[in-house]
């Protein structure tokens, strides 16, 4: 299945070969961005973010504009027709009639897949509910490939809220398309990966270890992917206070890691990575965000023009 006119709903809808095809287009675009500056001239993307987002929304808008395309953006829910009581279905129908592709984020699980059913034009899921964020996984995998020259055979640590964090869950599922040496799932007990994610890892034959402490595996890791543990996820605030130190990455912790360990983060970061880490050799999250624009450029071009 090619990319042309394809909905991008879950990383699980893709095969490894398809992601590799995408990555080769990203490589090409990075080498010579100006050659693609009018690739999507005459195309219009609608961004519909029912949940607050800066990074992903701007990343997609930047990607579209850099390819010579145009963007319309649905206002925040409070200022849009949703506030007047319009349902999701009608909103999607309207955006579909106006644009060539819809980039959507919504807090409801499965909303992107439903939007893709309603819309005739392709829909890109920019995060729905707690489950899927496929383009984040694509850019995370691409970043690893760029920095390490491979995705297979590496030890990964995924740190943070693995239960509700859709970026972490999507990356874990995306890694299962490749052959990681091992994935360390580092989280508080109460925020471990959901059963279906664990089941998917097992069915894919991926070696994984669940642990509560970064210190236990830091020396093994080639890639450390940090996400935030949100205070509001804990029913008991004292439990949060007790564990929060274990989920805050500092230079002290990193010193026990490999020389060429890379630290990634989907951003925005709050306080889960100490600012002192930013200037270290490990920190690659701002490069990751930059590469994300190229990944989305390649994706938009493949979807709209093939």
């Amino acid at each position: 299945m090619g990319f042309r006119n394809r909905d991008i709903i879950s990383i699980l809808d893709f095969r490894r070969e398809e992601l590799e095809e995408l990555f080769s287009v990203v490589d090409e675009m990075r080498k010579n961005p100006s050659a693609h500056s009018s690739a999507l001239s005459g195309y219009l993307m609608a961004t519909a973010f029912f949940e607050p987002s800066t990074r992903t929304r701007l990343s997609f808008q930047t990607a579209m504009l850099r390819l010579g395309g145009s963007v319309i953006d649905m206002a925040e829910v409070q200022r849009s027709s949703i506030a007047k009581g319009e349902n999701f279905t009608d909103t999607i129908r309207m955006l579909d009639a106006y644009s060539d592709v819809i980039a959507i984020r919504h807090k409801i699980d499965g909303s992107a897949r439903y939007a893709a059913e309603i819309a005739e034009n392709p829909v890109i899921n920019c995060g729905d509910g707690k489950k899927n964020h496929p383009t984040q996984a694509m850019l995370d995998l691409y970043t690893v490939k760029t920095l390490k020259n491979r995705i297979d055979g590496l030890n990964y640590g995924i740190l943070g809220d693995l239960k509700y964090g859709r970026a972490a869950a999507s990356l874990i599922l995306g890694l299962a398309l490749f052959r990681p040496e091992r994935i360390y799932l580092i989280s508080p007990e109460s925020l471990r990966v959901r059963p279906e994610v664990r089941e998917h890892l097992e069915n894919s034959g991926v070696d994984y270890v669940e642990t509560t402490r970064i210190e236990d595996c830091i020396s093994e890791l080639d890639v450390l992917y940090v996400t935030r543990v949100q205070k509001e996820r804990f029913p008991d605030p004292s439990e949060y206070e007790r564990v929060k130190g274990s989920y805050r990455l500092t230079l002290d912790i990193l010193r026990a890691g490999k020389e060429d360990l890379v630290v990634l983060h989907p951003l925005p970061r709050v306080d889960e990575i100490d600012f002192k880490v930013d200037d270290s050799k490990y920190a690659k999250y701002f490069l990751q965000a930059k590469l994300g624009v190229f990944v989305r450029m390649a994706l938009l071009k493949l979807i709209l023009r093939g």
Partner: protein
Amino acid sequence: MEEELLIRKIREGTVIDHIPAGRALKVLSIIGLTGGEGMVIALVMNAPSQKLGRKDLVKIEGRFLAPREVDKIALIAPSATINVIRDYKVASKRKVELPDVIKGLLKCPNPDCVTNQPGEPIDSLFKTISRSPLRLVCQYCGEAVSEEEVMGLLTKG
């Protein structure tokens, strides 16, 4: 058959046989029969069965099942057979079969699933991943449903 000694034949209607023991009342409930409708209903529970060891059986006079009702029965009584009776004779007999895709029969247990949002014209949609043990997965949010959960999730009507 043992149950023939207990209950008489029906003239027109439906016999639901080979229901797993103990589930006959649930079967009646999901097809909306409470006993207050006035039709003759015969119920045998925990009867000996060569195939199942023990089984339940239901006879309903003057009532035939819609395909949607048969699909619902398949969800909670996958071994059941449906006999259509006309003029005291078995006019047709078939085993229930759980479809690969189940649309609009079950409510997704995930309250945050798009199919549970008010004001949206959308039916639930489950894919049958496994028949024994029963395992269904919501095609929108990915939530899995087991056999024990199904009964509480069946939609009305």
